[in-house]
């Protein structure tokens, strides 16, 4: 035989079988009833050499188009520093398992501790976990957590301003978990405070989940939300874009109890939707209800500072069906990516990323409105993504953009389209987009 990933020679196999007391490899399956043995060869491609694998994937890649990304909606095309991908490619990080043996896992444990610290700083919370699968599932876990903190109340109010995919995943989890959801509609592009107050009046609500920046790109003004929610003994949960939290008011400042979201905006490649990393942060009093891995500081036998997975009495391998969640992993390597990114950027770099995105987004916004093809949908403050009302058919608009290799104008409501600009986009590119739209869309206006 001989295959690069299997070290066994025929002689090795013979000697090993001899020790085991088996004549052939097939004998190792003597305990398997013959009616479940497959007995055939899979219908799969022939084994490929590395060169052939490269050729295959190049062929596949040529069927994708590289587009200029002017879309946000939960996945942001921010700049990815080369150091971040270089660090996460180190095989000591990449090929390790969950840090169950802390004596030989201090590398993983330390960066998770740093990640938790940085997420806590950005969100204004006391603590954070080691990361979740993605933003949408972190929101679902937050909802379950709020119900668990509330003990007897099983209803959660969810803002319709949240990203559609987040609402969908929360709905799915809630429906199987026995959580009743109520929805807070948007009014004028933002979560309606009046509707929230009305929803809370039944005194049966465990918590409410609202976005920090909503599906229209608008920065929500959550003034008064926390007081109202807390006066009904419910918890305030905020879904946040962590990159934005370097400059916009933090959930902690708004009085939130639990913060969830996706760390993708911290420079992670778009990668067609994953891997990203969700995060979950909370106030200290709720830490024992927090799902997922958590790393804490301690010391070893010699008094050396060291780090370890902690508060494991919450988790499935100890508590089984009584655990706070079924999650038994995190997106560790992506949490490392976010940690390296935040270390490189620091407070000033993150601020600059936001300032550049803000500048570009407002430039494009004004230029598009000036064409007369669009009008502002809501007239509310935004950071890097915004919603316009298209006065031309949306499919013509999207096609016009695709014709010049641009992805944008995703429909987020009737004739409402999303645009997003990050620091990666140059003025010349935006000018080209605006000129092109003018040249092809005036005739359909």
């Amino acid at each position: 035989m001989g295959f690069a990933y299997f070290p066994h020679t025929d002689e090795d196999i013979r000697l090993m079988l001899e020790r085991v007391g088996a004549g052939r490899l097939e004998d190792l399956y003597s305990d398997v009833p013959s009616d479940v043995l497959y007995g055939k060869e899979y219908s799969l491609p022939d084994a490929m050499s590395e060169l052939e694998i490269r050729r295959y994937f190049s062929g596949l890649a040529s069927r994708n188009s590289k587009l200029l990304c002017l879309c946000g909606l939960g996945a942001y095309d921010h700049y990815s520093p080369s150091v971040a991908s270089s660090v996460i490619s180190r095989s000591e990080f990449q090929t390790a398992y969950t840090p169950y043996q802390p004596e030989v896992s201090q590398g993983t444990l330390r960066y998770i501790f740093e990640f938790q610290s940085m997420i806590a700083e950005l969100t204004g919370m006391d603590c954070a976990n080691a990361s979740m699968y993605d933003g949408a599932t972190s929101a679902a876990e937050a909802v379950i957590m709020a119900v668990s903190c509330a003990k007897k109340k099983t209803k959660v109010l969810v803002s319709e301003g949240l990203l559609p995919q987040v609402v969908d995943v929360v709905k799915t989890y809630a429906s199987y978990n026995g959580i009743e959801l109520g929805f807070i509609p948007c009014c004028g592009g933002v979560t309606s405070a009046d509707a929230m107050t009305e929803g809370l009046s039944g005194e049966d609500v465990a918590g409410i989940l609202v976005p920090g920046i909503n599906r229209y790109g608008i920065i929500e003004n959550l003034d008064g939300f926390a007081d109202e929610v807390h006066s009904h003994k419910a918890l305030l949960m905020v879904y946040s874009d962590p990159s934005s939290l370097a400059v916009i008011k933090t959930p902690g400042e708004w009085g939130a109890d639990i913060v969830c979201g996706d760390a993708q905006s911290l420079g992670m490649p778009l990668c067609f939707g994953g891997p990203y990393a969700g995060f979950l942060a909370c106030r200290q009093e709720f830490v024992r209800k927090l799902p997922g891995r958590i790393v804490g500081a301690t010391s070893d036998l010699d008094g050396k500072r060291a780090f370890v997975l902690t508060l494991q009495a919450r988790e499935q391998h100890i508590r089984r069906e009584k655990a706070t969640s079924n999650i038994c992993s995190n997106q560790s390597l992506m949490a490392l990516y976010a940690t390296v990114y935040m270390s490189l950027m620091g407070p000033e770099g993150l601020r600059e990323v936001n300032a550049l995105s803000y500048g570009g987004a407002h430039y494009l916004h004004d230029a598009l409105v000036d064409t007369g093809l669009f009008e502002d949908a809501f007239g509310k403050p935004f950071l890097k993504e915004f919603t316009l009302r298209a006065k031309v058919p949306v499919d013509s608009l999207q096609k016009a953009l695709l014709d010049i290799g641009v992805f944008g104008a995703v429909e987020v409501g009737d004739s409402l389209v999303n645009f997003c600009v990050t620091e990666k986009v140059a003025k010349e590119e935006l000018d080209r987009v605006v000129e092109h739209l003018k040249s092809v869309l005036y005739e359909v206006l």
Partner: protein
Amino acid sequence: MKYYDKLIFELSKEGRKGYSLPRNTWGRSLEELPQGLRRSSGPCLPQVSEPDVVRHYTNLSQMNFGVDSGFYPLGSCTMKYNPKINEEIASMQEFSGLHPLQPASSVQGALMLYRDLARALSEITGMAGFTLAPFAGAHGELTGLMIIRSYHNSRGDFRRTRIIVPDSAHGTNPASAAVCGLEVVQVKSNSAGLVDVADLKPLLDDTVAGIMMTNPNTLGLFEKDIKEIASLVHECGGLLYYDGANMNPLLGTVRPGDMGFDVMHLNLHKTFSTPHGGGGPGAGPVGVAAHLVPHLPVPRVCEGEDGAFHVDYGQCAGDTSCGRVSGFMGNFGVLLRAYSYVLALGKQNIKMAGPLAVLGANYIKESLKDCFRLPVEGVCKHEFVFDGLADQSSGVTTLDIAKRLLDYGYHAPTIYFPLLFHQSIMIEPTETESKETLDGFIEVMRRIAGEAVADPQILKSAPHGTPVRRLDEVTAARRPVLTYRALADAGLAAGR
């Protein structure tokens, strides 16, 4: 491994920076935002230079042990070699630069990969269809249980709220069931370490949604009564869920679909060689039998009659999907790696992976069973469990053995799981370890068994040569210090 004590915050100095960005010529300012929407002061993040960052994380990495560092016989985790070509493929710009909401016409290659991987997994497992959306094994379990509930509910059968789980199951099984709103009923193992069919029978009635099984189970034993169990569960109207964490030994030999399973997940980070990443990202695709395909989660990748792929979000009337379980389409980067692995193995090599993994496990078991207590005799599959030392008079525990292995340059096996025994040591070597590696491990395990008699203290105080020694886990849990801010408040931050 050398001890390195810094946290990145402790390298910070006002005025240092580790980034470079284009000059800001937009002429706009964040100060234009209403003050009430702005953060009052900047976050306390480190201010460090680029070389500081690179050296810090390189130092951290050197306190870590990975599959590339050495033998990692962690039972139930399938720590096989992670091929490097997979990383190269996953980093290709034409994939990593794709926005998940891009129109289907611009991502035909990505959608085709999704279809091709799902098809290969169906072939390997004997299932009719797959979703690649779940992010991990536990997430796959939850998704699979949602599919089961969706199926029963769609038939108006709302009474089925109980799920049967063996006492040897992975902890995620009962936990996933609880998140899915199911009541867990435990079925016992018999003296042969297998699901006790006699204990199962009385549990089966019209309130049973299904049973979750791992086969081979967590003792590494093949559940040979699986066909009988399948017909019993099906007769009572329940479905069978296959926990694919232990799929590796079956590659090439047994397919879950042929055993009667209706729903299953695979751990691509186990069986399909994608890196564990220190706890993730993984991927937990879920496969289903034909009658459950309409219940797979959205979004789904579909192929049109013209051969073009599109994404179905399940918005048509009458859609019976169990719902949406992930923000986008799963951990696409992990899916790329897994398919690269499938192509490298091809039909010729994949059928050898299972048998070679099984050979390694049996080789270690047979070589050590005179020194360690083997609770169940006979051929095992990819892993097996010892119940501590054969001679336990010295008081040396499984924990001591695990820690001593670290001194000898091996990662420890899984310990104290399964819960059936008090001193469980679960060993899984995988097919990518050579006979020489296994011989070295066997020799060290024998040496440790000898030390337990001659010098038990050296085991009880192990490890000795690692960057840190045993940790005070009690204090860590009793007085949690979870952030750098809390660490500094407790006076435990190191000066520069």
